[in-house]
């Protein structure tokens, strides 16, 4: 009973907040100083036009599992010495060096953030002319059909699973907000949400205005705190040393992308937040995410995992290990979110959850 009463009390408070939002029709946060968003779509960030020949004059990456198999075993052979030998290599990519040519993008316009604050020879220039964009991953992905929009399989499915699967809601809650156009000192917290997103009238997009309960059962490890500011409607956070941004769980494999110096740069409106999550992606965790996809999925985009591993390693540009090998690669994801009411478990609920887990 007390639990229900608490819930209703919480609801009454949030309703009042919502009525303020309704009163000026803008989703005002004047009283609550808080706004929440839920992730709907992620795409690996790189410059892309409709003209693939212009973007990739050398063509798209051509050696996927089928092509490498055909070249390596033109006459076939025992399954364990051919198909299985090649496929198992994805779990031990360092067993063999790169064997086939990989097409790296040579595009100079880039999408991302100037992570190191410097302008270097390998950096990109943004479409708006900003210098020093760090996104070495763009060179690996931009000429690979697996990642280009709109057909790129991995993000297509990842975003579909955000809509359909159980655990795939990633939230941000921004507090201490003065206004969505200017706030000098805001706190941003990343959570996992427990509730399905609301599909809009098209059946494909996600409608703003849904409610997400914070998942304190299995979501605790991904709760992260960032500090930032909002200037001219753009939220920019300071980097955190090590960050995780979950995408979608599929085939029972979580996609916990591990970043170093992770930060957010988002344009905020009362209904949406769109922008970038950027940092240095840990190469091994990125690769773990990639090989969760089965061979047939990777084949559609002509992506041979073992070859791709070396492409990643070749372009990795940060956090060298003791051997001097780079372990992280500058990168960014475009992030699309819609506004959501974020509710936190009350004390009773939290106690129960803690006792269970």
């Amino acid at each position, binding site marked *: 009973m007390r639990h229900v009463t608490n819930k209703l009390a919480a609801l*009454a408070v949030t*309703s009042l907040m919502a009525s303020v939002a309704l009163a000026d029709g803008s989703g005002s946060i004047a009283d609550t100083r808080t706004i929440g968003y839920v992730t709907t779509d992620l795409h690996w960030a790189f410059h892309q036009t409709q003209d693939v020949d212009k973007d990739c004059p050398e063509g798209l990456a051509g050696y996927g599992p089928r092509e490498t198999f055909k070249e390596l075993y033109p006459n076939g052979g025992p399954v364990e010495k051919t198909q299985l030998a090649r496929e198992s290599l994805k779990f031990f990519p360092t067993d063999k060096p790169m064997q086939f040519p990989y097409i790296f993008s040579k595009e100079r316009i880039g999408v991302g953030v100037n992570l190191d604050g410097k302008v270097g020879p390998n950096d990109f220039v943004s479409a708006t002319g900003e210098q020093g964009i760090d996104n070495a991953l763009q060179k690996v992905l931009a000429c690979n059909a697996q990642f280009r929009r709109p057909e790129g399989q991995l993000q297509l499915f990842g975003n579909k699973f955000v809509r359909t699967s159980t655990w795939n809601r990633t939230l941000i809650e921004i507090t201490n907000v003065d206004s969505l156009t200017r706030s000098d000192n805001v706190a941003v917290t990343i959570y996992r949400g427990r509730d399905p997103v609301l599909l*809009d009238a098209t*059946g494909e997009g996600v409608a703003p*205005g849904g*409610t997400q309960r914070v998942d304190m059962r299995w979501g605790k490890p991904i709760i992260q705190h960032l500090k930032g500011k909002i200037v001219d409607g753009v939220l920019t956070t300071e980097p955190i040393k090590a960050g995780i941004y979950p995408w979608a769980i599929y085939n029972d494999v979580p996609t916990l992308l591990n970043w170093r110096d992770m930060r957010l740069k988002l344009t905020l409106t009362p209904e949406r937040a769109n922008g970038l999550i950027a940092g240095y992606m840990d190469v091994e965790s990125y690769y773990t995410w990639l090989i969760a996809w089965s061979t047939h999925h990777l084949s559609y985009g002509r992506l041979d995992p073992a070859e791709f591993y070396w492409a990643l390693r070749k372009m990795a540009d940060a956090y060298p290990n003791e051997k001097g090998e780079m372990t992280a690669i500058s990168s960014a994801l475009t992030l699309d979110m819609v506004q959501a009411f974020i509710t936190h478990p009350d004390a009773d609920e939290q106690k129960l959850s803690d006792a269970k887990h």
Partner: protein
Amino acid sequence: MQSVETRRTRSSRVFGGAFWMGVTCAFVLGAAGCAHDVTEQRSADVPAVADLGPVDAGSVPRVRFMTAQQYSNVIADVFGSDIQIGTPIPPLMRAPDGLLSTTAGSVGIPGGQLMQLQRAAASIAAQVVDKGDIGKELPAHRSYLVPCKPKAENAADDACAEKFIRSTGRLLFRRSLDEAQVAGWVGEARAATEHLKDFYAGLASVLEGMLIDPMVLMVADTTEPDPARPGQRRLDAYSMASRLSFFLWNSVPNDAVLKAAESGEIQTPAGRARVVEMMLSSPRLENGIRAFFDDMLAYDKFDSLAKDGMVYSRESGAVLKDAREQTLRTAYDHLVVRNRDYRDLFTTRDTFMSPALASVYNVPAVPGWAPYSFPEDSPRQGILNQVSFLALHSHPGRSSPTLRGKALRETLLCSVVPPPPPNVDFSAVEDPDANLHTARERLTAHRSNPVCAGCHKITDPIGLAMENFDGAGQYRTSEGGVTIDASGSLDGKEFNTPQGLAHALRDHPGLPTCLVRRMYGYGVGGATTTLDKPQLDFLNQRFAASGYRVPDLLRAIALSPAFGNVAERPAAPLPAIKTTSLAAPGAAVE
């Protein structure tokens, strides 16, 4: 599975006889004439009780085709809600009195419809006797819906078949089967079992036959001489049980109600009162209340309602489904659970919220349906300001003060707004003129045509007060960059907010009298006529005296002599009453 041959033999026997007689009666002769054809000669000594209503008032007996929702409720109540029924009964056309249910006495049933009914009957019968599948988590319905086990599954068992036929047939036909009927159905079961070598298949074929029997599919009022009014007639006990049950539960009578009919208790004032109290306290009352308001508020239109997703991206199918549900839940909770004043349904801030709907209201929600109260400073007040009314009476891509005003007048005040003339020029409201930013501006231009002005004067001043809500029911303060002016008037009462309209409607004398008229017509299955005036006057007085409590109104209708008395002759429907914007409050209705 039974053979096609078996089905055809039985079906032609059933359809070839009583079915077509019933259909023809209902369609051609008119319901009143048919009802007398199936009148049974039973009588009982039942004195009239003056304080229950005018003793000489009565209603017309009818033969009504079961509605889709009634059919669904019947199957769920008799066999369980997990029986899949499909959609064998098409939607009805709305009657001039504003109700769907009152047209159920004058429907035609084309041949294609019969095929659908039989297909559904075969499917339902097969499910009722199925043996389940543990692997698919399907229950063995036969283990609890058939009250006995046959001696052998591949042979006839008359005793077991008779048990099933008596108990199931009594509920479906809403009366005890006589011995000849039982013997006939048992014989059918035996023949089918011998042919199919399967007792349950044989039973299913009998059940299929019952489910397409016209006396199951049609609710026929049968009458008997009325001992309290020599020379006149009243509904017999079984018809009284059915009328009460479809009125209060939108379904068949249960065992207790049928027992009261079998004993004749339901024909005594005290007995009927006991039965009505039992029915009013049953959980099935919720189905009845929801069915009535779904009908009165014209929510069948939700079945074909679609919004332009490019304009109202939040208004998904799930939102529209929940919008309908929200108002029905609100009505049942307000009127029955809390037993509050009917008029306050239009000013209450208490409702229920679902996650999908919350996105349109822009409020947080908890999973599932939960009670919710809009805060005091919210523009949302009453069911008029809920998404259901606002979205239903709008265009796919824009709001419509005219449609909203018309709907309020017609559904809630029982007025009739004439349709637009055939040559009306809609250009002022439909053309994207950059100089006309708001609906008020567009309608003002439209009303400059005197042909249009007459009707718009009685709808638009109401609808314009709801312009703070767009065509999806979302709150807004401006349209086309111009601040919305939500001022308006209702029969002389002026206001400038949606809440003001809610209060004006709440205090409108036509609001409760319209409900009385609709509910009485719904209960007796036909549009009210001039002959019903004394009865309606009595009910209006009773409703007011009760503080406008709907359970009291239901009780008053169900216990009134008119509910069971047969009217001397059918009368012409009450003429439509038109309102004007200049009329004084109340003048529009009475």
